[in-house]
């Protein structure tokens, strides 16, 4: 029962969605629309799980005074403030409260809501900076890990070399005098368009087959890993 019901649900919806692909009739289309709406709603609920797990972890840290528990306050407070500001004050368009505040205190908000101000001046810069840290790590990884140990590694390294050089103006300058076919940016374009793409196609076809096989196994109830173990 605990297995049968979910497996049946997966089977029925899986099969119906496959058949739907080939039927353009309104009946099938309307059903399809409704299903997509359902998925949007159900997925939204998983976010509740994520948030509650996060909050629990940080509350635990604070309670047990684990190392760095003080920082958990930072997370909890910033989370609460942002969520409250967003829910009460509005996401993209201001709610009445925000409009009232803006008129009353003569605020100048370019982004329309307080949430967007937080987003623009806290989240955007921090997110981008986090990612840009990778530039430094990549340099150090290139220095330490990219060694021409064997033939395959040499092929990888050489291609990376040519691509890195050919995709910037300086690479174009180096080979400016050569005939067009031998100019670096054209070589890179060729590598990307032929050998690279050939391999990409091969890999993608493989991945596609693997995904299709797994999806079929899910629908047929052979692959049950996602339901967890147990009865």
């Amino acid at each position, binding site marked *: 029962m605990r297995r049968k019901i979910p497996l049946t649900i997966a089977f029925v919806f899986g099969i119906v969605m496959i058949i739907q692909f080939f039927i353009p009739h309104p009946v099938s289309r309307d059903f399809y*629309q409704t299903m997509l709406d359902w998925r*949007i709603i159900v997925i939204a609920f998983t976010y509740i799980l994520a948030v509650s797990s996060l909050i629990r972890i940080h509350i635990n840290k604070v309670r047990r005074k684990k190392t760095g528990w003080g920082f958990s306050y930072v997370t909890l407070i910033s989370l609460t403030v942002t969520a409250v500001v967003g829910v009460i004050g509005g996401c993209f368009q201001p709610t009445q409260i925000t409009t009232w505040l803006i008129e009353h205190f003569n605020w100048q908000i370019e982004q329309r809501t307080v949430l967007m101000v937080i987003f623009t001046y806290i989240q955007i810069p921090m997110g*981008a900076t986090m990612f840009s840290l990778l*530039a430094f790590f990549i340099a150090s990884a*290139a220095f330490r890990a990219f060694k021409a140990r064997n033939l395959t590694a040499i092929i990888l390294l050489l291609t990376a*070399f040519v691509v890195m050089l050919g995709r910037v103006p300086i690479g174009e300058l180096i080979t400016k005098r050569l005939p067009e076919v031998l100019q670096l*940016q054209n070589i890179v374009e060729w590598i990307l368009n032929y050998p690279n793409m050939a391999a990409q196609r091969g890999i993608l076809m493989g991945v596609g087959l693997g995904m299709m096989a797994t999806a079929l196994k899910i629908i047929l109830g052979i692959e049950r890993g996602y339901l967890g173990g147990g009865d």
Partner: protein
Amino acid sequence: MGFWEKVMRLDRRWVFFLIALAVLIPFLKPLRLPISVTKPVKDIFDEVEKVPPEGPPLLIGTDYAPSTAPELDPMLYALLRHCFATKRRVMLVALYPQGAGMAQAGLDNVLPEFPEVKSGMDYVFLGYQPGIGSVILQMGEEIRRVFPTDAYGVSLDSLPMMEYIHNYDDIAFMMDLSGSSVPMLWVMYAGARYEQRIGVGTTAVSAAQYYPFLNTGQFKGMLGGLKGAAEYEKLIKKKGYTEARKVATIGMDAQSIAHLVILFLIIIGNIAFFASKSHRKKTKLTSG
């Protein structure tokens, strides 16, 4: 310990320092290296030129987060400037929760240059909806189904620009800006199901991955990374559409130098690796 072994054990913070310098110096002292326009970028530019002024709009998907914004923001700015300067209409949609913020930030940045451009008349910002694949598919039937209102809560039916816009048939071209796999979903659903013409603006990382789809025509063109954005800036500047500061173009000098530094690091790393290996062998021979 030989010299090369010392190099191998170099504190990585020196490497960090070198990279920081490589990026910083070209900013303060620009080299102004020339930029040549590649075909995928020209293709996008031509597609946007084909969008009829004051007719069916260009749909821009801002499906990226702050983490990839430095690469994709310049593309958004350039596309918006291109359209606004030539009276082409724009629709913006976000399928990434943070994408809505990115689109709004982009508009805030560009709109002051075009005081005559009005929301609902010349552009519509649809906002964000969760459920990427579902949203794309539903937009193929009726945009109002997923987006009854625009991001500012105004009903789409009351927007003059939306009068004749219902689904992909009324959209001239679609440009998805994303560093994730969202463009693939656009191709799989909007492209395969509804034959929407789609172009992609993506990070340099994902660019390599999208080349196969470029050749198949599933993407009509591509802006790849900062370089792609710089090429696009060059194209719209050449046409005289905008005099705005070319964010991506300035960055390309720094990019060149940083690449050279990394190539240099790989070479040094390999020399050190092989030198210390042969050195070790030699010491083994003499001691044994």
